[in-house]
């Protein structure tokens, strides 16, 4: 009976969920960024973390189709040389794009405040494929909504995607649309290039456009092969994550790589295991079709 019962219980196990997703990787960065590690302890408290209902940290965008987007769209949105942002009013929205990616954050704040917008902009290091992107989420009220529902809502901050469209509007935004009269308070992060030893606050898959293994197949290759591929581009493996086992400083070269990201300039994290990844992350849609 013992085995039958355990077997029966196993058979009614609810679906395990989607596994590691873009949102899951964002959460990782949200957590570590919200409470940085300092001298043996993490300083912020749970209550503070949970109280931040509106000061959304808006951290990582892990791009399925990361694109290098220029924030500088000269002439398109009516340049005002002194402004770090271009803010135009159109059809009940403020349409905001960033003209100067490396401006003093205080300038962004002032220009937004002058329009009565309670939105803060910060600029943080991101992996190469995400430089110039604006990091979602943009509005706390996205919570619980599907992408389709978000697209229908008119009272939320929404992203402006790069010209030519994008399959995943979350990860290739180049600006924001904020409803006129928006009463919320939001904070938005812009991605900049990282300096040596600076940890990225957002990172795209290693073979996204702009990343070290751009459009190259590396998932389900052996650790040895991927190590060589990375090494040729000056990238070392900082740590391995082994599913269900934990971090490892090294694993056998014959193991298979399941996923990988650049976590700081020249340093990658690889998810690796003895077996192959049955559900490999799809190639960026911006890569040429593979045959």
């Amino acid at each position: 009976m013992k085995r039958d019962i355990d077997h029966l219980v196993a058979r009614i196990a609810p679906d395990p969920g989607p596994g590691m997703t873009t949102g899951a990787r964002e959460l990782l960065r949200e957590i570590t960024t919200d409470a940085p590690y300092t001298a043996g302890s993490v300083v912020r408290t749970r209550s503070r973390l949970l109280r931040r209902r509106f000061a959304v940290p808006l951290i990582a965008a892990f791009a399925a189709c990361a694109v290098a987007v220029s924030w500088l769209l000269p002439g398109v949105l009516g340049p005002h040389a002194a402004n770090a942002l271009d803010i135009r009013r159109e059809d009940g929205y403020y349409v905001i794009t960033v003209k100067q990616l490396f401006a003093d954050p205080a300038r962004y704040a002032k220009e937004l405040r002058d329009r009565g917008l309670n939105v803060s902009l910060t600029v943080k290091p991101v992996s190469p494929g995400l430089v110039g992107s604006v990091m979602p989420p943009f509005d706390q009220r996205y919570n619980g909504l599907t992408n389709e529902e978000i697209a229908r809502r008119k009272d939320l901050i929404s992203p402006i995607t790069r010209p030519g469209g994008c399959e995943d509007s979350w990860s290739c935004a180049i600006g924001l649309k904020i409803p006129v009269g928006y009463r919320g308070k939001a904070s938005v992060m812009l991605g900049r290039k990282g300096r040596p030893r600076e940890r990225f606050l957002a990172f795209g898959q290693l073979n996204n456009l702009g990343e070290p293994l751009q459009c190259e197949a590396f998932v389900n290759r052996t650790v040895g092969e991927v190590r060589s591929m990375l090494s040729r581009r000056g990238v070392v493996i900082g740590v391995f994550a082994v599913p269900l086992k934990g971090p490892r400083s090294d694993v056998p070269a014959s193991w298979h790589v399941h996923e990988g990201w650049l976590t700081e300039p020249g340093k990658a994290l690889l998810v690796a295991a003895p077996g192959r990844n049955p559900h490999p992350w799809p190639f960026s849609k911006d890569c040429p079709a593979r045959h």
Partner: protein
Amino acid sequence: MGPPDPEQRFEAVYMAHYAAVLSYVRRRTDSPDDAADAIAETFATAWRRVADIPDGDGARLWLYGVARRVLANHRRGESRRTALATRLRAELSAWAEEAPAAGRDVGAVREAFRRLGDDDRELLSLVGWEGLTPAEAARVLGRSRGAVRVQLHRARKRLAKELDSAGLDVTRYGSRATALVEERR
């Protein structure tokens, strides 16, 4: 290669165990928002206590233990919506919409399972869903191995009784496992 720094270690722990924690939480919550909150709080707690996370597979059991306490607090009405995991909520909502309906027999077994007490369900789930041994389940629950073995034996008997009351023959199910699996797909 030296030992990873705390952030690097947490990153790797997260990448290695996220899917397991997601499954644990999702299987024990009804709404995607609740699941996202509990996952966020579990890993936020783990990050604050990164020095306490055991090495190796012990980390997974430790994370289950944290998630279990988080869910217990939520059930006591102590949960609050976090500002974290906004995209994760949308993903879990979309995933829930796609979940397939279960077959009739599976539904009957689930009903019998739901009639058990919380402690019985949790222990049977740790063994049946997470695939833990009684010793590992004891670590998650913070109880002695002996006590957990006894409780597990009793929980199995109670489920068998519920199934019997519902007119389901347990012994026949062993041989019908394949059919049940097919039915779930």
